[in-house]
């Protein structure tokens, strides 16, 4: 495709932009525009678009700039708070990971006592009533398995894990 070009096009455009067309136009240039399809096209388009722009500007329904300003401030503030909170969220996830690792380590260390633990739980489940005295007696019968350590550990794990998950989900 050949891009045609007219040497007078810029001159015509400048007149149209300044509002000098056609009143302030040189007669020779007007005569040229009548015979030049490119310049005639420029005049047609520029005057049409200027007219459309004027109409569209009248149609515009503008918001108060103050509302936009405060909404932008709010958005900037939220973005800044989110940016600053990012390390805290990282710390929460780190705490969760440590908890999980501790749980895995505990399970691994107590794995060899799993049979006894299963028997102990089934003993409680099958027993007529759960008595602390019975539990205490059973604990005393289990060598190498100290419930005084295990139960607080499990309780602490559950509480800390719950708090960590809560804090992570709150974000």
């Amino acid at each position, binding site marked *: 495709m050949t891009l045609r070009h007219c040497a007078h096009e810029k001159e015509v455009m400048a007149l149209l932009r300044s509002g000098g067309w056609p009143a302030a136009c040189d007669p020779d240039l007007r005569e040229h525009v*009548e015979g030049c399809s490119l310049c005639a096209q420029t005049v047609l388009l520029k005057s*049409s678009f200027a007219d459309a722009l004027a109409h569209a*500007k009248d149609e515009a329904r503008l918001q108060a700039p103050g509302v936009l300003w405060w909404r932008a401030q709010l958005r900037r503030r939220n973005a800044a708070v989110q940016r600053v909170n990012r390390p805290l969220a990282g710390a929460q996830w780190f705490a969760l990971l440590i908890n999980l690792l501790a749980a895995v380590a505990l399970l691994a260390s107590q794995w060899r006592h799993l049979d006894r633990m299963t028997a102990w739980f089934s003993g409680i489940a099958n027993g007529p009533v759960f008595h602390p005295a019975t539990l205490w007696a059973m604990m005393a019968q289990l060598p190498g398995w100290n419930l005084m350590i295990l139960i607080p550990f499990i309780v602490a794990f559950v509480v800390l894990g719950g708090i960590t998950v809560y804090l992570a989900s709150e974000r």
Partner: protein
Amino acid sequence: MIWDYSIARLETGVAALYAAQPMDSDAFAAFYQRSARSLWAYLARVCGNPALADDLMQEAYLRFLGASHLPDGEVACRRYLFRIATNLLHDHWRRPHTASIDELPEMLFAAKDGSAASDAHVMLGPALAQMRPRDRQLLWLAYAEDYTHNEIAEITGLKSTSIRLLLFRARRKVARLLRNEHPAERVQA
């Protein structure tokens, strides 16, 4: 403590945020008054939907104010604003519920274009409605906003050399449409 550190950092961050405002409230109000009508006209005529133009204009100003650094001078700020608006238009067209910018049927706009119906007396409306959205963008920026090829390239993200060719084709097409609709309204000397 990590909490003390975090709270101090939060306060510092928020304080820095307010200190680093690229434009104050009064300056923005003045800039808004000078630029909003032109921006709305651009969005409404290119997307063919005044309600969508309202939303996009609001979002454009919010993103403009959210920028950490604005270009120097009103002309550059205005160009930057038009660039944001153009990107928003592209994002809108790229969303799954709509087709891509190049696949949109042209007559769809002609049928649903409320703005075109509202200014039916203006001869450009029906002709623009038959143009592709990208052609409308280029034509509007060139002939309504008087941007140069380089400025249009900066706003639209297209190459300056491509603008020349695309604009040449678009202007030929819209001129033909205008003449077909209004054969008697050829350029009057």
